[in-house]
């Protein structure tokens, strides 16, 4: 009760503002990998996410149900991505189609180099980012954890940088926290940890490192119980955010008693 109150208190100190828009949650949910719309809907509810990613694919008359209806019903903002694109050209056109189809100029920019690592191609990514910014898009690039590339993406006008913790879907967590700290340390835009998170403690760590938000997909949609994991992640993001603000104790080599040393009885 009062803890909830507190929690809101602290969060509200600094609302999460992205491209000038305030979002009510620092958890962004990817909808891919879920076995059904029903599962997406439950995970969405449990996660309290305010924005979800979607992919752009050829219309398929056979498919029933529309992901957009699910998002609308929940009042969740849609963030189209360019998943599957290998070149700046493909990504730019996919972004243009997404804007046309969904009426949003926000785009999660993905330009990957291969299927095995799904790692971003730094050159194509930068080219696409520059072109999309010039075309009036609000660009949220999925990038590796290189602080220099993150800096260049900001210089190109991206409204956020979304470094990976580890490759998409691996659940390896944050492989290199030092890089994330370096990125956060100099970022002038929100840093959103994207990809690699496997469980709640990974998400909490991302926030403790200073990330403004996390983007989750497989860790939630492919968990044995997606809704339960979504709820776990919602708590983890709050936990990590609060801990970052609370100022953790320094690490010590030797122990320090938490009970008073004086006043011991002789027994």
């Amino acid at each position, binding site marked *: 009760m009062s803890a909830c109150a507190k929690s809101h208190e602290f969060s509200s100190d600094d609302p999460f503002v992205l491209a000038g828009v305030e979002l009510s949650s620092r958890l962004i949910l*990817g*909808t*891919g*990998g*879920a076995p059904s*719309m029903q599962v*997406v809907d439950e995970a969405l509810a449990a996660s309290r996410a305010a924005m979800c*990613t*979607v*992919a*752009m*694919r*050829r*219309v398929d*008359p056979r*498919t029933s149900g*529309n*992901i*957009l209806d699910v998002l609308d019903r929940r009042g969740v903002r*849609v*963030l*189209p*991505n360019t*998943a599957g694109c290998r070149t700046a050209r493909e990504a730019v*056109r*996919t972004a*243009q*189609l*997404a*804007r*046309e*189809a*969904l009426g949003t100029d926000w785009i*999660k920019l*993905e330009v990957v180099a291969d299927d095995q690592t799904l790692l971003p191609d730094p050159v194509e990514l930068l080219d696409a980012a520059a072109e999309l910014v010039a075309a009036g898009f609000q660009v949220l690039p999925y990038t590796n954890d290189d602080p220099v590339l993150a800096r260049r993406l900001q210089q190109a006008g991206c409204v956020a940088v979304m470094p990976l913790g580890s490759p998409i879907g691996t659940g390896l967590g944050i492989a290199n926290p030092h890089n994330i700290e370096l990125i956060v340390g100099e970022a002038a835009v929100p840093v959103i940890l994207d990809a690699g998170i496997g469980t709640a403690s990974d998400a909490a760590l991302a926030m403790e490192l200073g990330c403004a938000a996390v983007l989750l*997909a497989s860790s939630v949609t492919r968990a044995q119980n997606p809704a339960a994991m979504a709820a776990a992640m919602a708590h983890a993001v709050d936990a990590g955010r609060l801990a970052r603000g609370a100022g953790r104790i320094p690490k010590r080599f030797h122990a320090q008693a938490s009970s008073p040393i004086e006043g011991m009885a002789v027994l």
Partner: protein
Amino acid sequence: MTITFNGAACVIEDGTTLETLLQSMSTTARGFAAAIDGEVVPRPTWQMVVLREGQAVEVLTAVQGG
């Protein structure tokens, strides 16, 4: 006349517009976007755009992803 629709060959009558083509395949075109030979075609112009032999039409929509 033959065009390519989402990667598949597709025979249509001469003079077919993009709008007609799309209506034929879906009651609602909500959340759709179309490109002809890679160029985005804004929805307002769909009914003006008459398809031509050999053109590649791509029509996309949002699906679960990312």
